[in-house]
């Protein structure tokens, strides 16, 4: 009862290659039918995303050339001449099961621990299931893979934390302010990253967003998108009293906010905490501002270093994930071996029915 996976991913091939092998949804249904009609495999699931194209297949009896047959099928289906440079990989049992589990947990992904792949995997399985291309073996295996993903999510920290600059900024805001709802955000300089950060803050509850930009039109456009209000580039100081979070990314060659200036501004504002996120290079905010009471200044390096540490933390969890996966893989293979009779169902019915 071998389960085999054949395909290519961002680890093995560049996008120019992956796109040639990619399946559209309608192609997937067609391909699933062909795999079984040609007698290559009894069960199959095709996963086609921007980072990987993979066929998971299972046969009733062990078949030493199943991997090669699947590779050949991929070439034939897409009309590509086989070449060694294509770097298709094939994993046999038990590595194939390990591989599926890793994919489902996001530890084979480009962004370690991302969760989007799990949804894509579920979608691929549903499609194959609807086409009646799966039976006991792959049903069990995929269900197990979804369970493992859930287990890894709850037992490890592989998916925890922000690994982009804008989401780190949001997390910072959330560890300072009780609730983002009542905080006022001021975006100075409508750049790409500041826009992302503002959007992220908004999605986490921030309701009041002010946008200040040298070109007022751009400020108005961004404010409209964020449901905020545009204010004059030189008049943001007037609004300062109500502001709790500033995201600054202007192209100004000097500090927009020096310690002396902030000190005098703070006098009117009271001692509410103030988060200053400076993603501009050269910097907009004098780093000395951080020494003021209740003021927290983070520049682009601070944010990137935190994101980097989150990635390190995820990497540190890899061993634990692999151990969990190995345990679950053994469980699955034992149970598949214990009930081999079940594996003969499903496909036969489909063949008889059709």
């Amino acid at each position, binding site marked *: 009862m071998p389960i085999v996976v054949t395909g290519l991913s961002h680890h093995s091939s560049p996008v120019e290659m992956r796109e040639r092998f990619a399946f559209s949804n309608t192609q997937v249904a067609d391909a699933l039918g062909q795999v079984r009609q040609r007698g290559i495999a009894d069960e199959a699931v095709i996963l086609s995303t921007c980072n990987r194209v993979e066929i998971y297949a299972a046969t009733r009896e062990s078949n030493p050339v199943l991997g090669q047959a699947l590779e050949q099928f991929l070439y034939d289906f897409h009309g590509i001449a086989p070449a060694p440079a294509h770097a298709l990989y094939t994993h046999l049992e038990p590595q194939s099961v390990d591989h599926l589990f890793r994919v489902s947990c996001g530890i084979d992904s480009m962004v370690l621990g991302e969760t989007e792949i799990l949804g894509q995997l579920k979608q691929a399985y549903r499609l194959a299931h609807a086409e009646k291309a799966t039976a006991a073996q792959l049903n069990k295996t995929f269900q197990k893979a979804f369970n493992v993903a859930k287990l890894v999510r709850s037992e490890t920290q592989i998916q925890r934390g922000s690994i982009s600059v804008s989401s780190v900024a949001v997390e910072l805001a959330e560890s*300072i302010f009780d609730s983002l709802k009542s905080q006022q955000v001021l975006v100075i300089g409508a750049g790409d990253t500041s826009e992302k950060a503002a959007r992220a803050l908004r999605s986490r509850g921030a309701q009041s967003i002010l946008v200040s930009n040298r070109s007022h039109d751009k400020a108005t456009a961004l404010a409209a998108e964020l449901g905020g209000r545009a204010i004059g580039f030189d008049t943001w100081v007037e609004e300062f009293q109500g502001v709790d979070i500033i995201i600054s990314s202007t192209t100004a060659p000097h500090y927009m906010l020096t310690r002396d200036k902030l000190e005098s501004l703070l006098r009117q504002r009271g001692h509410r905490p103030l988060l200053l996120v400076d993603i501009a290079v050269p910097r907009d905010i004098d780093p000395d501002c951080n020494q003021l009471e209740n003021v927290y200044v983070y520049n682009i390096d601070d944010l990137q270093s935190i994101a980097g540490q989150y990635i390190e933390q995820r990497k540190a969890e890899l061993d634990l994930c692999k151990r969990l996966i190995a345990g679950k893989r053994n469980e699955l293979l034992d149970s598949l071996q214990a009930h081999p009779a079940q594996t003969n169902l499903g496909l036969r019915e489909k063949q008889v029915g059709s």
Partner: protein
Amino acid sequence: MLYSTFLWRRGFHRDNWINFGLLAAAFVLHTLAMAKRGFTLHHCPVNNLYEATTFVLWTIAAGSLALALLPKLRFLGVFTAPLLFCVGLFALWPGLDAEYIDNIPNFSSDWFKLHVPVILLGYGAFGLSATAGSMFLTQERNLKFHRARALFAILPPIQRLEKIITYTLVIGLALLTAGVGIGAAFVEEDATFWGDSKTIWSFLVWTMYCGLLVSHLKFDQRGRRYAWSAIVAFGFVILTFWGTNLLSDIHNPPTP
């Protein structure tokens, strides 16, 4: 306590029930011991220094366990455990658990059964504000120095901690006011009220906490200074509680 230190060093990454469980188990045992003592004595066990101290600790433990049920406050126990341990050790000092005379003349009214426990509950609330304060300082420091553990840690936002400090201070002050009020209203006439070291001390504590709250609510005293004040104030209470108690004539009437 040891486990707390361990968790502290680990940076509070994972949601952790072990510390909570240990504290809860200790709390149950503590409650049992106190109930036993209370039933044997037929009153709330708060009549000598040992009992009073353990009662305050019990209140702190109860409060932090209750707060630990809220999300992100699970680690409050980590901050209370060292305090409980140190003060608890001190309460075991020989001589503090002295036998006492039951019918103290000044305390005949039934209201006095409330006087002591209510005040001690108040001190418990002050103790909680101090632990919330230390949590605040830890997290504030992490944020100020751009340590990633500020985000890794499952700790509440510092603004929420500040609110917790204020709430516990308000509760503590209300209880202290009520307790002292009961004492003043029902004390026997002949007691020399204002010359007593403990009444003066209580008044001092009351003024101190009142001042702290006013400075926060009225004059916008916030952040690190506020958290430090809550800790220092409770430190003052803990360190001077014993001394003034022993000096007081009303609270230690000469044996007839």
